[in-house]
Each structure stands twice: as C-alpha cells, then as structure tokens.
C-alpha cells in the first residue's frame, strides 16, 4: 500500500511538475494537515485562496525531504500529496470539458480549506491547553483506600427492621407456593405422574409439622386426579414418610411428617 502510493505520487509529480519548489525547514509534524498548514503559514498565503499548484509542489518536496531524512512518514502524508497533485492536475487539464473539471477541482480545494481551518482551530486549542497546563501547575492528590476505611466501621445488621412476623410471612409465601402446586395443575390428568403428586403432598405435609387435614391434602377436579392423590398418599404412608391420626371416627384425618420424610429428597 505504502510503496504503491508513493510511486503514484511521484509519477504524478513527474507528469505535472512545473517549477522547482522552494526549500522548507522541517520540524516534526503531527500529520499531513500540520505540514500543509506549516507551508501555508511559512509562505504567508491566505488560507482561503491557496495556490494549489505551488503548494502541491512544496508539499511533495517536503515529503521527499522527510523521506530522505528518514523521518517518520505515515501513509497519510502520501495520500494528501496525491490529493494535492490530483487537484492541481484538474486545474491544469487542457482537454475534456474544462468547466466541469474546474468545478470539481474547486470543490476539492474548498473541502481541503475547510479541513485545514478546522485543524488550525484545534491546533490553536491544543496550544491554549498547553499554556493552561503550565500556568495551572502540577498538583497531587491523595488516593484513599475506601475499603480500608469502611472496614473500620461495624457492619450494619442485615436483618435491620426484620421481625418474627416477617419470618412467618416469608414462610407463608413458601406455603402459598406449595398449596398452588402450579406444576401439577397444569398437566393433563392422564399425565399426572404419581411421583409429582407424591412430591406435592409430601411438601405440604412437611410444611405443616402440626398436622394437615386429609381433605386439604387431596385435591383435584376430576375423579382421576382425586384417585391419583389418594394413591400418592397411600404410597407415602406405606413408605413411612407420613403417618395419620384420627381422634374420633367422624373427625378429619390429620397427616404428619415422620422422621423418614426427608429421605425422599436425598436422591436429588
């Protein structure tokens, strides 16, 4: 890319060279716009009325010198050199409809002027900042280790404002979720697996350690669902995870978790 561009620049230069460029002093430039601005200021040229042919030749010459001096020469310098020579050639082009090429060259020149003006503005701003930097002086600040400071304070009680009532309420939420038995309600009765229903029943029995009513545990809208729940209950009784009590023949049967109730979850 770089070599290709360079040969382009110098081929064009050979083709269009009109008069030798004057010698330029070469400080380090911050880019091709910086160099171009330097040339314009050095020649005391009105930035709105740049003689493109002259400035293009000077620019190319400067780039050559930079190359000869082994200065850092980025591809952007070559790109701008090519652009300048291109604009110059459009102005000089004898053939083709002359007006058209002049209009195009004028547009390109105008665009370049605008970029130069913007660049000059920021270059001035940079100089202003540089002055400010010196005049405001160097100041230093302390870097505080906030974590270290914080560690000297006692941590707040994370339970601030939490009462037994809040704990019970939270427990209530767990029960509400168990009572809803969302998963079981959504499956079709035919698909209700006995394992899932056993989980549902056991979960509620454990949550009510003081006993829960038989009628409350068995739930279902269809005969099939009721049967599955009853079977699940019988299975849990047989496994010894729950036990039931009935104080008198007509009282509701109460179900309680046994010590073995937890063994159910251990496989998970």
């Amino acid at each position, binding site marked *: 890319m770089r070599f290709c561009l360079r040969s382009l620049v110098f081929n064009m230069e050979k083709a269009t060279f009109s008069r030798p460029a004057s010698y330029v002093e070469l400080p380090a430039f911050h880019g091709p716009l910086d160099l171009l601005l330097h040339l314009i200021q050095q020649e005391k040229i009105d930035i709105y009325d740049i003689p493109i042919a002259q400035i293009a030749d000077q620019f190319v010459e400067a780039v050559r010198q930079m190359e000869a001096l082994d200065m850092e020469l980025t591809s952007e310098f070559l790109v701008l050199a090519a652009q300048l020579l291109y604009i110059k050639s459009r102005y000089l082009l004898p053939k083709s409809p002359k007006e058209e090429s002049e209009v195009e060259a004028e547009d390109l020149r105008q665009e370049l002027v605008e970029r130069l003006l913007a660049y000059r503005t920021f270059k001035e701003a940079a100089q202003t900042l540089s002055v400010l930097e010196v005049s405001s002086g160097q100041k230093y600040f302390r870097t505080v280790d906030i974590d270290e400071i914080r560690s000297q304070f006692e941590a707040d009680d994370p339970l601030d404002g*939490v009462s037994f009532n809040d704990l019970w309420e939270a427990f209530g939420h767990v029960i509400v979720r168990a009572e809803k038995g969302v998963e079981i309600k959504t499956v079709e009765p035919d698909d209700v697996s006995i394992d899932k229903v056993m989980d549902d029943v056991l979960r509620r029995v454990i949550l009510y350690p003081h006993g829960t009513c038989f009628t409350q545990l068995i739930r279902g809208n269809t005969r099939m669902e009721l049967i599955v729940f009853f079977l699940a209950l019988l299975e849990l009784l047989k496994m010894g995870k729950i036990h039931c009590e009935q104080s008198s023949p007509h009282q509701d049967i109460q179900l309680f978790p046994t010590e073995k109730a937890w063994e159910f979850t251990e496989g998970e």
Partner: protein
Amino acid sequence: MLFRETEIAGLEALLLVANEPLTLEHLAGILELDPAEVVEILSEIQARYDNPACGFMIFEVNGGFKLGTKPEMSHYIETLYHQPTQGLSGAALEVLAIIAYKQPVTKGEIDFLRGVQSDRALATLVEKGLTQEIGRKEGPGRPIIYGTTEQFLLHFGLRSLKNLPELDFERIREAAKKELDEENET
C-alpha cells in the same frame, strides 16, 4: 521558624499524598534538612493541628509519619461512607425462615420445599453471617447442612434456638389463604 515556610508546606504536601508512612530520614532527604529539623517541623505542624477547628492529625506508625483524621471526626467519615444496608430479598427471607424452623437442613431440602432453586439466596445469607454450614448429612452425596448463626439469634434477642417462637400457623394459613384467594380472583 518563618524562614522554613517552604519546607513546612512541603512536608504537609508529602504527608498528604504519601500512601505509606514516611520516615524522618526519608523526609529529611526530600526536604534537604537534618532529621532533627524535620522533627521540629513535624511538631510545629502537629501543634497547628491541635486547634479544635482542624480535623487532621499526624500519626506515628512503625517509625514513620502519616497524615490522618482526628478520632473525633470518625462519625463524619462514617456518615460519608455509610452504605445503606441492603434489605434481604423475599427469596432470602424465605430461605432464612425455612432454615430457622427446619434446621438442620440441606440445600436440596430447601429447594424441595420452595419448589425453586435457592443458591443465590443461600449464598447471600451465608455471606451476611445469618446462616452457616454446620456439617454434612450422612447419606448419598453427603450434602452440606445449614443452620442459623449467633448473629441471627442476636438480632432477634434470643439466647438459643429453643427460644425461637413457634411458627404461628393460624396466621400463616390465614395469610396464605387470603393470598391464594386474591390470586384466584384476578
């Protein structure tokens, strides 16, 4: 000591930006003074800080000197850096309630009762020192069992877990029923 104004100011500036305590020798080297002169300057600065309208103080640590705030100022600093305690989330409270009333209990058991994963809530509770690992359950996988901590008891003013008031099932049931009814209506 007027003639040493610059060095006094310099010493103050050094104390302000240094992260580590500065020794007499180090200070003397930078200020181009004798250590004895540095001692004099230090006591002069300290005398200035003794003014009750000044919040600074020079501390001597491990043979070095550093700038800090007077102990009386700590409540202001505490206010500046006070982190409002993040209240526990609903999930964390649920897990805490389950652990409080069902302990010792494993994560699997908590998950089973809640019907959802409780990893995050459990980690928060352990981090905040409200629950802790108290061992492992015998059986397959030997899962960790959790219990409440001393801090938990302290907060509720309990001497031991035995003093934990019983779950008020009447109230829980009523609240739960109300919540369920409300949800069914909508």
